[in-house]
């Protein structure tokens, strides 16, 4: 049975640990600078307007998550947790909670600092943000699980997260229509499109559906990799 107390224990430990981790803390505030720079650009009418939010998900949701998981493996602390009464679900939720809370705080902060014009449909926008965040946290967990050290999360994670989180920028460097079309289905692109559609009063069914599929695939893949590699 899943225990809230045990999940909370993992969260509190991660929180205390993060406060003493200068590398992670300095990484976490990077999106704030992007938001500040974007604010200087004035009103943006494309999905690029939401880039600081996506960067918050990539940097805080994915990178910090990957670092937290990889460090547990690198320092052999994950084994201690696995040999305690914690079950798989509690470890998953507990280890993702800090990145989730921190990402949400960072997203709120970049919206204000970047003066990002969000859609009026707050609930739908929040739901889309949470769904996208789930995808990025799962991607971070996968990178953390396949990396043996925190350093490796950068080596493995940067190319992966560059593709999954910075499609907006990559698309400007590619000429192939096919590749651009395929990249349009990446989670960051779908999230940006969804928020833009909401803001402009257009239909959001398709991006919601694609994002939901990303959640299913990424969470499924995370569970699969976790079962295979948790003790490595």
């Amino acid at each position: 049975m899943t225990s809230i107390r045990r999940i909370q224990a993992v969260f509190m430990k991660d929180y205390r640990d993060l406060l003493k981790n200068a590398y992670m803390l300095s990484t976490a505030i990077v999106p704030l600078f992007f938001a500040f720079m974007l604010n200087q650009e004035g009103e943006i009418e494309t999905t690029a307007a939401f880039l600081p939010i996506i960067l918050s998900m990539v940097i805080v949701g994915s990178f910090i998550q990957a670092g937290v998981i990889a460090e547990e493996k690198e320092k052999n602390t994950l084994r201690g947790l696995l040999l305690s009464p914690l079950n798989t679900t509690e470890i998953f939720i507990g280890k993702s909670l800090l990145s989730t809370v921190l990402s949400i705080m960072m997203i709120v902060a970049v919206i204000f600092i970047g003066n990002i014009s969000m859609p009026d449909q707050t609930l739908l926008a929040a739901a889309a943000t949470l769904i996208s965040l789930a995808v990025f946290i799962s991607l971070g967990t996968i990178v953390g699980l396949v990396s043996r050290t925190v350093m490796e999360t950068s080596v493995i994670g940067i190319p992966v997260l560059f593709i999954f989180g910075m499609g907006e920028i990559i698309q400007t460097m590619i000429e192939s229509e096919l590749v651009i079309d395929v990249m349009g289905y990446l989670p960051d692109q779908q999230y940006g499109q969804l928020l833009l559609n909401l803001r402009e009063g257009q239909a959001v069914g398709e991006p919601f559906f694609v994002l939901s599929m990303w959640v299913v695939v990424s969470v499924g893949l995370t569970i699969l990799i976790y079962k295979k590699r948790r003790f490595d």
Partner: protein
Amino acid sequence: MMSEIIEVSNVRKDFDGKRALDDLSFSIQAGETFGFLGPSGSGKTTTIKLLTAQEGYQSGSVQVFGNAVEALKDPKQMKRIGVLTDNTGLYERLTVDANLKLYCNLYGLSYSRIAEVLHEVGLTGEESKVVSKLSKGMKQRVTLARTILHKPELLFLDEPTSALDPVSTERIHCILRTLNEEGTTVFLTTHDMYEAERICDRVAFLNKGKIQLQGPPRTLRVNHSDSSILLLLKDGREQLVGQNPEGAERIREVIASQQLASVHSNEPTLGDIFARVTGKELF
């Protein structure tokens, strides 16, 4: 009457086609301290991983608390064991107190248990220290404190005193003896024959994944003794005499000549026996 808490029968474990454990069979009774002796790579850590359901195996059976070892994946069963791995596994940036609080919360224990367990391992007053600032011996004691925090019935220790100084080693031995006296069953791996002899009720010699010999250390030593007696003379010389009329006559002569400093049994150490049985040194 003591009951068997661990029963391993004919276990085979392969890693990528390479045999790690071969026809492994042994049992441990409740309240025993059982030592697994063997050089690095002999399969000691793999055995602990098997006994704590961290690894599977190809054939044979492993029972812990009378159930198949897989039952340990149930959190209720997991609470009955404590595992000290070959790495401290402590959160280095956090304090001793924060490390132990995490496990108090995971096991549903009161924080008052922290003071108790720190007293048990001789670390009272060290709770506010950051783990990274502790000595290796102190870190190992914090790890042991974490391992025994929930008062497990069965303790698995993977080389608990490896690379520790003699004082820290002695402290750990004292703690283990006390825990054992209180009824905790201890399974430990070591390549330190002195450690095995001091704290184990029974030992097994493991070499290339196979148990070569097992029994109480004292029995093993007596059984492998050649019954000779070592005489240490006052001039520093040593003389080995047999337990026979010639040997008795020689001892009488030495005593009469007032040359005798001391008389010793010539029993082999566990290390000597291991070398004889396997043709290898423990290190």
